[in-house]
């Protein structure tokens, strides 16, 4: 008996040992080649360059930056740019995707057909073509500063970008901040507060909009205005960011639309019929029966779409939007020549962001999946 059990054990050890040896040999070979190649260039792996003065400009940034900051800080600045673009794209893609899905499910043949053809056209053309199309064929042929396209005398669109009025003020910050905190807390603890009868999907988004509007009325608005050859004041959205957000946002929205449609159609029609026969109105059955279950099906594909968005922001390198890949694998690499270190950092950043996001979404998914099952 013992002897018979031992035989497969030895086989397991043999197979796994062989695989480990082969992998180790491959990596040892890589490491050896790497050290020879680096020695030939007179270099060694050293992340110390991160503390050195960068000395280049980053044209669009949300945090402090000038040439005197270090390479390490440049990683932070470009990382914030990547995440900022991702956040904008996620909002745009989700909203557009919901709109397209609603059009498709509306039962109106005109709306459904339009939605369907938009989805087919957009998802069968490369993302990069769409981004570059927006950048070069749409935003770069806009009029110059002085002939800006103007909306309401406060918003200007020209070849240098989109100029928007920017709000500020302590009361504005306080109202907006507390609304966001309130909505987030509400979303997290809705069930514990005992408000199941009122669906949070109906209450929270309008609350957020209401808070933003009230805050907007209390804010001091800084309007952009043309002084000499340039706009001063307000907020400038560079064309690179606009093109990236529009390109990836529209591209991803059609995939999200298909996911939403599949999720809602995936709920068995018996569910809706049962809800109606219990006397729920069609709105109640949608918000209390269909959507909560559809959301559960929707989360995994939606997660992978959001992760795709974060990864896709690297396409900003094609139009020089200063995100991690553009700043690091282009500018920093050219200046410092530290190929291994730079690529390790870039790959590491994306791996960490991806793993963290998917862990968070998995957690949310597990919370939702547990309910009522």
């Amino acid at each position, binding site marked *: 008996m013992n002897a018979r059990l031992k035989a497969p054990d030895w086989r397991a050890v043999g197979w796994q040992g062989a*695989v480990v040896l082969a992998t180790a040999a491959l990596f040892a070979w890589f490491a050896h080649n790497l050290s020879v190649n*680096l020695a030939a260039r007179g270099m060694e792996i050293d992340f110390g360059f991160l503390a050195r003065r960068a000395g280049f400009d980053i044209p669009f940034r949300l945090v402090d930056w000038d040439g005197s900051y270090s390479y390490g800080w440049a990683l932070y600045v470009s990382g914030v740019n990547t995440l900022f673009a991702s956040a904008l794209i996620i909002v745009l893609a989700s909203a557009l995707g919901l709109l397209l899905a609603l059009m498709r499910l509306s039962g109106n043949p005109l709306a459904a057909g339009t939605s369907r053809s938009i989805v087919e056209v957009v998802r*069968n*053309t490369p993302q*990069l073509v769409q981004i570059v*199309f927006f950048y070069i*064929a749409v935003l770069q042929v806009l009029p110059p500063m002085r002939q800006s396209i103007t909306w309401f005398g406060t918003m200007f669109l020209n070849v240098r970008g989109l100029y928007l009025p920017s709000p500020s003020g302590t009361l504005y910050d306080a109202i907006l901040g507390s609304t966001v905190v309130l909505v987030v807390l509400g979303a997290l603890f809705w069930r514990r507060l005992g408000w199941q009868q009122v669906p949070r999907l109906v209450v929270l988004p309008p609350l957020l909009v209401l808070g933003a509007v009230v805050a907007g009325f209390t804010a001091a608005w800084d309007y952009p205005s043309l002084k000499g050859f340039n706009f001063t004041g307000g907020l400038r959205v560079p064309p690179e960011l606009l093109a990236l957000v529009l390109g990836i946002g529209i591209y991803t929205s059609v995939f999200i639309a298909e996911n939403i449609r599949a999720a809602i159609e995936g709920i068995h029609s018996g569910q809706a019929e049962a809800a109606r026969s219990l006397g729920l109105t069609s709105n109640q059955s949608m918000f209390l029966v269909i959507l909560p279950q559809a959301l559960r099906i929707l989360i995994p594909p939606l997660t992978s779409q959001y992760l795709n968005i974060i990864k896709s922001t690297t396409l900003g390198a094609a139009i020089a939007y200063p995100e991690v890949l553009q700043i690091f694998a282009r500018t920093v690499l050219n200046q410092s020549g530290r190929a291994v270190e*730079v690529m390790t950092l*870039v*790959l590491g950043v994306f791996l960490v962001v991806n793993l963290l996001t998917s862990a968070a979404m998995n957690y949310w998914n597990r919370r939702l999946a547990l309910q009522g099952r």
Partner: protein
Amino acid sequence: MKALTRQPLLRAPLLRALFGTPGNAVISLLMLGAFALALPPLFRWMIGDAVWEAPNRAACLAAGSGACWAFIRARFALFFYGLYPEPERWRVEIGLLLLVVVGTGALFARRGRVWWLLVLLTALPMTCGVLLAGGVFGLKPVPTPQWGGLMLNVVISFVALGGAIPLGIALAFGRRSRYPVIRILSVVMIEFWRGVPLLTVLFMGLILLPLFLPHGVTVDNLVRALVVMTLFTGAYMAETIRGGLQGVPNGQAEAATALGMHHAQVQLLIVLPQALRLSIPGIINIAVDLFKDTTLVSIVGLFDLMGVVNQSMKDPAWLGLAAEGYTFAAIMFFFACLIISLGGSLLERRFGVGQRR
């Protein structure tokens, strides 16, 4: 209901669907308004006022206010072959012909479809590789920097897909292995490639791959892109095939074992073919995504269709015809992806999932 059908306007089912309820009528009117705003200018630009024949951009502008398709016509060969030398272009055409013949065979053959598919994925790429690269059988060598245009997109996606399927099968089996070491290594490999963006990976191939090879060995830029595209696609392929493997009922493997088949025989002859059949839709999705993503190589300095379009707009005679160039590229990709999807659904139907009894 009766009252509704008696109204003459709403007797037609289409009209009833469009204007039957107030809500629907509002949506329909909004949609029609949007069409009226968007479609006529689009039609005027693309067809109505478009210029089909002109020697350069200035002549185009003089002839009409629409799209300057003369630019596309002048650059047509470049968009398809890149800088591939003109006297050698018949080789590309023969390669395309072979692809069409074998592809049609794989889709429509009555018997031996598996063999057609194997030829499509192994013999054909090798033949085409020899044909395109040259250097043997008296064919003039054509260095890869001269490869370009849509041909390059097809070459890259074909090689990457052909390499990714065996790699994906190996990784999928590895991830299901009962040996923890093999399982962990497969998971790490798959999750690494799925966790990083393709463009970063292409940069990695461009910058790091030469460093990891013996000193003095130089690798062609195209080969670098091919290697990383294959590994990248292989990781996604592994997940799709793993899904397929999970979809094969346990009874199949148990029945095969009961018939006295060896473990490897069970997996390779019974489980894998059924799993691959189940994963056809996923593989087709990967193929479409891969084909679209081949445009990314233009950022790392290869001249695929996208790169050629980028370059052509800098030609002084046709300066700045971006809208036309990218619209053309989009149309080409749209139809190519459509062909892949249609072929895929045909393949799926031919292999008849769940219809064989």
